């Protein structure tokens, strides 16, 4: 196991001059508290620099060496930096020194080219040769798996990529996981045995060619092997091409997805534009109708008065009609009296009319024939005409409700138009930099990649068929050689068969070991996850082919969407499980792992830290994790406490506060 015993920095980042952290050789946790920008990430980078000669930025890009040295020291003319890492591994003490200094003759370095780097490793008091130094370092801590030992808590969400098939980062992480778990030992053994078997086959052919009896078969075998090599080369090339095409396809798919979103936005824009035009046209027509209705608006105001006038005119007309009927009746009666007077006989009873009666009748007749009193009485025609006009006007007064409804419709349509315009604005903003020809190019490229994949797939199948046929030919020739060959050939055959069997063993072993590892990682990660999570309804974690972990609810359902905090807890569970199952043991050096977590999860993780690795170095800021809380939680497992104290913006000092 690798255990860091001290880290010494000289002018590294904000750590001016020489400063050290001494770590306990006991199992437990060392805390380093420091506010933002004081140099917590720099400390991880110092370890990374010592081991691998690299310094990474937050985005995991390699940083220029020129930017790493202490700025105040550089101002005083002292350029460059140095890290000394002391560690124990398998009972041996090592001191690793890596230094970066200006090249001789360069007084004021400006770029990385102005620096030179050296490193050496001491085992006890012996300095190892450069080859042994590098070999030891790659055994103690291979760079490919360093992500599981030195990590930034903020980047833990990367592990979600393991849930996505064909994700490039997911594949990288999967390879690193398999590496830390020791799978490459088997995959390399499988590959090497296949290579050694091929070598043995070639030797077998050469030996056969030397003997008169087996020469022909040996030559045939050599030719078949040569053909097989050519097909294998082509198959390798095609497989690489396929991998490249699949990567391109997955990149294109992302762009196509974006493209589809954009296409949907453009369709929406088109629909909205047409809707706005439709609203405008309809409202124009509605407004014209409303304007026409408004020309009679005065009628709506006069409606009550009109109704009163109409009533009055109707009454007047009734009076005129009644008077006219009365006059007609009087005239008829007067005519009958006149006739009776002219004959001096009653028209009804034929009695003679005496003088007195005749006189009375004449008086009555005169009265009946008297001209009618028409003072103030309008003519029937005039009244009818007035009533007609009044009815026409009253008819117009009835359009008021329809006009109001029309007005509301116009207003509603206007509101809809405003909403459409707002959405149009949003879409135009989103698509302002849109290059439609680029979209078309992406779609064409995607279609072409899909076609190319099909072609390469076809090529691979063809090569595999050819290889199968050649393999059968070789087997047939080998069987024949076995039948007629001598002792020399038997020895070569034994080598070939041994390599073939070993290859088969390791081939099967890869599958069996992977499956066993997956089960163990799943079990250990689940156990740790249940210790870390505050959610009582979660039952376990389920592992996928890529070592991605899915949360399983106690009802058996898989939790499809998880928060950043949950992602963090799952990633830490994976880290812990890998540490427990990896052949390679080392310290966990973690930077700010609690930023996304609530108090409950933070407490549980702090409590679980000592079980995650034998040596844990935790770098946090105090508001992320209070020192007293850590002391109370870890108790005896808290070995030492350091604090990074600010001297200036470009100068931090490491101070031991406990232990």
């Amino acid at each position, binding site marked *: *196991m690798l255990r860091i015993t001290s880290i010494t920095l000289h002018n590294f980042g904000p750590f001016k001059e020489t400063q050290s952290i001494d770590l306990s050789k006991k199992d437990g946790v060392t805390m380093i508290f420091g506010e933002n920008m004081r140099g917590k990430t720099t400390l991880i980078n110092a370890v990374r620099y010592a081991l691998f000669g690299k310094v990474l930025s937050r985005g995991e890009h390699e940083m220029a060496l020129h930017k790493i040295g202490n700025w105040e020291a550089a101002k005083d003319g002292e350029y460059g930096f140095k890290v000394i890492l002391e560690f124990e591994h*398998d*009972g*041996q003490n090592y001191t690793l020194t890596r230094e970066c200094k200006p090249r001789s003759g360069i007084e004021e370095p400006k770029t990385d080219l102005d620096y030179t780097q050296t490193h050496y490793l001491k085992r006890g008091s012996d300095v190892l040769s450069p*080859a*042994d130094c590098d*070999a*030891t370092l*790659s*055994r*103690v801590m*291979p760079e490919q798996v360093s992500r599981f030992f030195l990590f930034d808590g903020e980047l833990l969400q990367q592990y979600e990529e393991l849930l996505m098939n064909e994700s490039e980062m997911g594949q990288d992480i999967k390879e690193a996981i398999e590496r830390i778990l*020791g799978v*490459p*030992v*088997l995959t*390399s*053994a499988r590959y*090497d*045995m296949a*290579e*050694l078997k091929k070598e043995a086959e070639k030797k077998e052919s050469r030996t056969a060619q030397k003997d008169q009896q087996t020469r022909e078969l040996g030559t045939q075998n050599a030719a078949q092997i040569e053909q097989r090599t050519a097909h294998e080369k082509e198959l390798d090339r095609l497989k690489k091409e396929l991998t490249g095409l699949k990567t391109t396809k997955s990149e294109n798919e992302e762009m196509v997805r974006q493209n589809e979103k954009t296409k949907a936005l453009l369709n929406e824009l088109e629909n909205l534009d047409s809707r706005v035009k439709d609203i405008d046209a309809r409202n124009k027509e509605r407004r014209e109708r409303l304007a026409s209705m408004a020309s009679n608006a005065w009628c709506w105001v006069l409606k009550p008065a009109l109704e009163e006038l109409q009533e009055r005119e109707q009454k007047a007309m009734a009076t005129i009609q009644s008077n006219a009927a009365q006059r007609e009746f009087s005239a008829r009666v007067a005519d009958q009296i006149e006739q009776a007077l002219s004959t001096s006989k009653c028209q009804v009873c034929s009695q003679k009319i005496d003088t007195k009666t005749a006189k009375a009748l004449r008086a009555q007749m005169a009265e009946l024939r008297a001209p009618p009193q028409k003072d103030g009485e309008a003519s029937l025609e005039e009244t009818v005409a007035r009533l007609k006009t009044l009815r026409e006007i009253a008819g117009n007064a009835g359009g008021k409700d329809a006009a109001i409804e029309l007005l509301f419709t116009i207003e509603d349509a206007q509101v809809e138009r405003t909403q459409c315009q707002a959405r149009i604005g949003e879409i135009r903003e989103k698509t302002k930099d849109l290059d439609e020809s680029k979209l078309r190019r992406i779609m064409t490229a995607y279609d072409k990649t899909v076609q190319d994949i099909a072609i390469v797939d076809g090529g691979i199948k063809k090569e595999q068929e050819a290889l199968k046929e050649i393999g059968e030919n070789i087997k047939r020739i080998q069987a024949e050689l076995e039948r007629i060959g001598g002792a020399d050939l038997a*020895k070569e055959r*034994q*080598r070939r068969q*041994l*390599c073939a*069997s*070993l290859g*088969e*063993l*390791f081939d*099967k*072993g890869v599958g*069996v*070991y992977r499956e*066993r*590892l997956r089960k*163990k990682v799943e079990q250990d990660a689940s156990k740790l996850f249940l210790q870390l999570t505050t959610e009582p309804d979660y039952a376990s974690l389920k592992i996928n082919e890529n070592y991605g972990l899915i949360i399983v609810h106690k009802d058996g359902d898989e939790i499809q969407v998880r928060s950043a905090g949950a992602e963090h807890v799952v990633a830490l569970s994976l880290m812990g499980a890998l540490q427990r*199952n*990896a*052949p*390679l*043991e080392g310290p966990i050096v973690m930077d700010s792992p609690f930023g996304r977590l609530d108090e409950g999860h933070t407490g549980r993780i702090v409590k679980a830290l000592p079980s995650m690795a034998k040596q844990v170095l935790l770098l946090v800021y105090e508001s992320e994790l209070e020192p007293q809380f850590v002391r109370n939680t870890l108790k005896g497992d808290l070995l030492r406490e350091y604090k990074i104290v600010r001297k200036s913006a470009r100068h931090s000092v490491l101070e031991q506060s406990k232990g």
Partner: protein
Amino acid sequence: MRRTTKQSTPRENAPAGGKHSDLHETIEALRKDKFPKLPKALVADILRIESENLEDRHAAMADLNEAIENYLSKED
């Protein structure tokens, strides 16, 4: 410079960490079950060579060749 196991001490040759035993156990169980004729020591030797030489394929091939050659010569 090619690194071989001959240059290393026995301590260096030990598989990194204790959990390589899982890998060895898995392969040994498989060997016993499916490939009983394969020599146990040679299989263990191959795993050791591979775990020590992951970064150096040339060294791995040379050591593997040597291990197989030694085994075959002993068989003779």
